[in-house]
């Protein structure tokens, strides 16, 4: 799986969505249900909940549109692009758009929900038999009012169960007429219409007036598609006309003649040659549920996967009994964690592949293991250890101790290969492994009892296995559980004018750069003395970073300078190659 650059995700766990409009291809209740089921795919495996809004701005705004539909990425007619969605964020970010030149179904042909009749809204059963004849579509046979209907069991003659199929003669949707049926003929701009029309609109949607005169009453609604209607073309909503003539030859069924793409089409009048009215024939359609589940994956922060069986694989394929692939689950839980029965959020329960012989910054390789459980002697979490074969990192849901809620940190440093974030008596740690999870908060006083609550800077002397902590004008040196200090930073040769050490960078063996204000000094760790020739101006050597950075540290071969919630990342050639958010890029919030 892949996440978007910067691991874009929603800050809130209660994500809202709103359905802006509907496709005419399916009953509204089926569309609502498809979207709700698509969200459930993700809420089943994460602590996320999804709440539907009926007005206002939701996190995820869902809409159907054709071709140019208001964003810079137009759709392309039937097939090809089906939908797209934006990663989490403000405005259009998080929104999902579906191409309404597609035929939206539940993936296996027309999904026709009935109204009225005696089947209590059941789905049509195709094929069904009526008076000895089999029907694979809704029919008007046996009726004089021209209303299409279907049986909801295989045999109408024996079961007598039926309902009416979507038709503009029965109802409209959206618009301003509360779903009233079309009135034919109706007058629009002085002209009379006997059927639904796309006139007056530039989005290709078919509409009708629900009174006899739109010019006077301004009442309208959109026409639902009939299961027999063609899709796209220039006669959407009309049924195929069989037989029809094309290039002088008569056709009794849909054909791909005349097209290079093999798609089946038909004429909606008796002669394509004369009238040029056509559309694509209804096919299996695309499962709105499957496509929506994929798009909502994007809207939650997942990019495309290259695993063919994964939901987030970019290509569409229909599956009957859908279940979320492990790759998708790992991806979404990397972003949001998973939820356990006792309400505790398991943060980033990620199966990672690591060769234990390699250094912690190496690329993932062969072996599988789960994130190590917090050491019980250093966790504030009330939760006990879990099954060691499936251990996970637990984090109490306490917003006051949520690292993701903090604007900045007292210091950030790497200890034992893991990024540590210190703030007001607590610290969190993030594994340096790819997809490693955030652990904490832990108590500083529990782990390093001699230290004060506020740590300005820290570094690890790996060779000597010592940890140096700076707070104000004092510093401490921990070796395991034994501690030296506090001692004055003047003992190291730093001037008494400096108020605190704000950053520390390891430079080769036994040398550490200490930052304060606009200057830095080089400490010889073994001699415990500042080298000659210092201080130097930070901006003379580290160009392009803030001169008032409050955290400086080295992580994965890059140097980070932090100010407020941002970081400036510098590569080994001392070029700033990235500016980003501590919260999203380092904490993976």
């Amino acid at each position, binding site marked *: 799986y892949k996440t978007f650059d910067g691991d874009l995700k929603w800050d809130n766990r209660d994500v809202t969505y709103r359905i802006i409009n509907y496709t005419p291809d399916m009953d509204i209740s089926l569309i609502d249900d498809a979207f709700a089921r698509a969200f459930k795919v993700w809420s089943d495996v994460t602590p996320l909940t999804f709440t539907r809004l009926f007005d206002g701005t939701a996190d995820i705004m869902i809409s159907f549109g054709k071709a140019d539909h208001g964003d810079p990425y137009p759709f392309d007619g039937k097939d090809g692009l089906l939908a797209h*969605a934006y990663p989490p964020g403000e405005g259009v970010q998080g929104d999902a758009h579906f191409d309404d030149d597609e035929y939206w179904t539940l993936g296996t042909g027309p999904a026709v929900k009935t109204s009225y009749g005696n089947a209590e809204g059941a789905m049509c059963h195709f094929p069904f038999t009526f008076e000895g004849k089999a029907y694979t579509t809704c029919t008007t046979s046996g009726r004089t009012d021209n209303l299409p209907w279907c049986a909801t069991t295989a045999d109408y003659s024996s079961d007598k169960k039926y309902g009416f199929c979507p038709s503009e003669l029965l109802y409209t949707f959206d618009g301003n007429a509360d779903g009233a049926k079309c009135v034919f003929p109706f007058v629009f701009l002085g002209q009379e219409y006997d059927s639904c029309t796309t006139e007056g609109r530039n989005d290709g949607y078919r509409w009708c007036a629900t009174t006899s005169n739109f010019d006077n009453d301004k009442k309208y609604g959109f026409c639902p598609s009939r299961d027999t209607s063609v899709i796209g073309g220039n006669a959407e909503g009309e049924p195929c006309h069989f037989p029809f003539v094309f290039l002088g030859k008569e056709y009794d069924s849909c054909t791909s003649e005349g097209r290079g793409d093999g798609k089946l089409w038909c004429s909606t009048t008796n002669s394509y040659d004369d009238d040029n009215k056509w559309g694509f024939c209804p096919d299996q359609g695309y499962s709105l549920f499957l496509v929506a589940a994929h798009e909502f994956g994007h809207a939650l922060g997942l990019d495309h996967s290259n695993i063919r069986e994964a939901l987030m694989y970019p290509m569409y394929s229909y599956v009957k009994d859908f279940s979320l692939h492990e790759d998708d689950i790992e991806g979404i839980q990397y972003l949001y964690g998973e939820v356990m029965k006792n309400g505790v959020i398991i943060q980033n329960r990620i199966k990672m592949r690591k060769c234990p012989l390699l250094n912690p910054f190496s690329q993932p390789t062969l072996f599988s293991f789960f994130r190590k459980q917090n050491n019980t002697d250093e966790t504030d979490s009330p939760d006990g250890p879990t099954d060691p074969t499936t251990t996970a990192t637990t984090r109490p849901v306490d917003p006051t101790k949520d690292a993701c809620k903090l604007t900045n940190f007292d210091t950030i440093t790497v200890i034992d290969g893991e990024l540590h974030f210190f703030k007001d008596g607590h610290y969190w740690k993030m594994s340096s492994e790819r997809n490693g999870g955030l652990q904490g908060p832990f108590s500083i006083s529990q782990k390093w009892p001699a230290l004060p609550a506020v740590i300005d800077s820290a570094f690890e002397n790996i060779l000597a296995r010592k940890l140096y902590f700076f707070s104000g004008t004092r510093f401490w040196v921990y070796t395991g559980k034994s501690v030296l200090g506090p001692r004055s930073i003047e003992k190291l040769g730093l001037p008494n004018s400096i108020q605190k050490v704000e950053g520390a960078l390891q430079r080769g063996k036994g040398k550490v750069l200490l930052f304060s204000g606009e200057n830095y000094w080089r400490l010889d760790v073994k001699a415990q003395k500042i080298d000659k020739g210092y201080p130097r101006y930070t901006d003379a050597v580290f160009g392009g970073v803030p001169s008032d950075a409050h955290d400086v540290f080295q992580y994965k071969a890059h140097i980070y300078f932090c100010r407020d919630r941002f970081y400036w990342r510098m590569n080994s050639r001392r070029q700033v190659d990235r500016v980003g958010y501590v919260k999203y890029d380092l904490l993976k919030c």
Partner: protein
Amino acid sequence: WSAPLKSVFVTFPGDIMKNMTDTELAEGYLKKFGYINTLKRSGFQSMVSTSKALKRMQRQMGLEETGEMDKSTLDAMKRPRCGVPDVAN
């Protein structure tokens, strides 16, 4: 032997999809989904060769990495899919 069918292609009014050659289709696909003309962070335009882009696309799609517009690659390009680019720009 029966005479080969002579297909005549017409332009259907209102049809958004234009008749494209395979090369046009492939180039459009590789551009649309981010495999070529990837805008780098530093702001310069990097022209990735079509062969490299095809290999990248083939790897993403789990196809044999030939770097050529073979049939399976073209077939994959014609399949319905999500509009979000595979390679972030």
